[in-house]
């Protein structure tokens, strides 16, 4: 290498050294530091491509409750829980029943002439007139019943506090319970980091349980044996994000799933196989860092979103 080349090379290196030191000294001061590299940047997750949104909001029904917690639909009636009340409203929004309850309900299911509501370590059973006919309290102190689903004479309860699913008889006796574990360590069990633990039965009587910590929906027999599952872990709109999603789910006629996620709140549709279909309600529809809504569907494929932040039932229909 010629000497002149070496001198040029050295000069360039000297400039690099000076620039690095001066730049670092001038910029890396208190208050002049670059933005927090560990900041949890969520903005990108709030954006949803317009073509992915398959539903539109057609109506919303303002509720006379402050803290909405659960919703289910039967026929032309919506059963909504919140505060210490159960309210039954028609699809036109007219109030049909408003019942004060002994405890704060977290979820609701209707079957035959009974209304079941889960609460903190108890289940309330009402008749269709709103009379409390039974209250099951054989739960542990840490129990938190966050979901109920009924199929014929089987009432399934999801206990987020103890990470278990119970199967009850209509008379209030516990027939079975399972944790989603197996003896050969294949199954980890339900991972429920927050009070979001949902279950449901589709029109074919298949029991599905959300395993939010694994971002999965798992299909069990009534005795708690795993039959299948699907999971969707993507950082984009197709997957479930955060610590514990899906927070809630429901079934469309035909078996497609409607899921609702917490954190970045959004409602989406998946095929029974877990294949992503599209978005029902994008995050822009909800308050940022708002409370997670419960969801339900009706026979016409409408999706009802029980939005606690807007204290209303929001109805979404296919475009």
């Amino acid at each position, binding site marked *: 290498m010629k000497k002149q080349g070496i001198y040029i090379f050295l000069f360039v290196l000297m400039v690099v050294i000076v620039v690095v030191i001066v730049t670092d000294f001038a910029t890396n001061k*208190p208050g002049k530091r670059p933005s927090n590299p560990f900041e949890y940047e969520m903005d990108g997750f709030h954006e949803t491509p317009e073509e992915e949104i398959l539903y539109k909001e057609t109506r919303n029904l303002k509720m006379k409750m402050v803290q909405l917690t659960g919703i289910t639909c039967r026929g032309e009636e919506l059963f909504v829980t919140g505060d210490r009340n159960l309210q039954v409203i028609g699809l036109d929004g007219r109030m049909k029943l408003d019942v004060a309850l002994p405890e704060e309900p977290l979820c609701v299911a209707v079957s035959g002439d009974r209304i079941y509501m889960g609460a903190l370590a108890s289940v309330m059973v009402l008749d269709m007139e709103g009379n409390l006919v039974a209250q099951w309290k054989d739960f542990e102190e840490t129990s938190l019943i966050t979901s109920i689903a009924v199929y014929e004479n089987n009432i399934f309860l999801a206990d987020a506090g103890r990470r278990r699913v119970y199967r009850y008889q209509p008379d209030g006796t516990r027939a079975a319970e399972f944790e989603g574990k197996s003896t050969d360590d294949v199954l980890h069990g339900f991972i429920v980091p927050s009070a979001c633990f949902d279950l449901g039965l589709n029109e074919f009587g298949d029991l599905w349980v959300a395993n939010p910590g694994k971002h999965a929906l798992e299909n069990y027999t009534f005795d708690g044996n795993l039959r299948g599952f699907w999971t969707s872990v993507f950082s984009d709109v197709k997957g479930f994000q955060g610590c514990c999603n899906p927070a809630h789910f429901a079934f469309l006629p035909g078996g497609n799933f409607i899921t609702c996620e917490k954190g970045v709140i959004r409602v989406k549709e998946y095929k029974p196989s877990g294949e992503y279909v599209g978005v029902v309600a994008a995050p822009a529809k909800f308050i940022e860092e708002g409370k997670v809504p419960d969801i339900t569907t009706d026979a016409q494929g409408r999706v009802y979103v029980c939005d606690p932040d807007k204290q209303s039932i929001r109805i979404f229909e296919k475009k």
Partner: protein
Amino acid sequence: MNLIKKLIYLITALHLLLAVPAMAQQRFPKPEFESGYEQPDTITPEPRSLALEYFDVAVLLAVLALASWLALKKRSREGILWLSIFTLLYFGFYRNGCICSVGSIQNVVLSFSDVNYAISAAALLFFLLPLIFALFFGRVFCAGACPLGVIQDLVIVHPIQLPFWLRKVLGLIPYIYLALAVLYAATGTDFIICRYDPFVGIYRMDAPYTMVVLGVAFLLMGMFVGRPYCRFFCPYGVLLKWMSKFSRWHLTITPSHCIQCKLCTTSCPFDAIDYPSEEKAIVGSRAGARKFLLYAVLLPLWVGAGVFVGAKSHAYLSRANQDVYLAELMIAHPEVKDDPDNLDVQTFLSKGRTLEQLVEDARIVRKKFYTGSMIAGGFIGLVIGMTLLNQVIFRRRTDYQPNPGDCYSCGRCMDYCPVDKNTAQLKTAVPVMKKE
């Protein structure tokens, strides 16, 4: 030896490639445990045990002793090279370049200025031992015990001689760096020697990319300019230089007497060999008396100018201090209190201190900066003045000899001397010289 060098280049290149900045972040927010689960406490790694700290001191002592013996008694360049490799592996890659004597200046300074800070015995010994050895045996620490020095020493490929004036100008940087490092450490602001240590990121294989660039730039430069960090940056080198100038015993080029063969003149990649005084310089040395007087008169002016610049720049320099900066920011922009993205402000608010307390603390720090900046400025002015003065002080030399202040005792020059150390006669085989 070539094979060893190639191996070292290969290992160093591999480490440089691996030393990419690593960043991590929590992908999702922490789960909201609501069932009695308690978040475990953050576990802080235990500091290195006291016994191992003293073991490090013992290793340093052994390396210094061995380097002294190899340089002065055994006169073995090869031995010093192997010792360098050990230092590279132990103090560099195993101990991750910490604790090092270079950075220990700041610990010592802080222990004097902050009553709440107690320096560990190991840190103090790391600071003192190389200086004590330099006082007796020259800069043997630089030769084989400094991880920052040896990594540069091992990459020297084609050293060039820098112009005298450039060496003198660049040689002022370590003094400025030392002054600033002491100022920042004394005010509890920052440990800038550690912050701008170009090689620690390589040893730890973890550094911001700018520091990796800095380290690589120094190593690339070191291929042609021997030990650029040691010569033109190292603040500890200033102290070692002072000690080494008075060293009782120092490495010599020749084991016996200089035969003026000039073979050693191109052996030193650090331009640290003093030549015998030329006849012309001896004759003209008296003419320098006037220059000497002029520079001596200018010396107080240099100091005064330094004090003035220091006093004027203290406000700017003090803004590197967290308290000073925050106090200024929160007075000028009170709305930053509501800015959740300003981590500095949010950290301050979470500590529960009041703005009045912050302002008072900042005032005390700024006062320290005022005094410290003037002292630092005066010191730098003194160094500039003395450097000029040194240029006209005539020193008579009859032999080729290592400059006791600048010589790193690496022993390269010894191999070039044809005088046999045992017989004091010419060696039978004289190394083949490649003239620059």
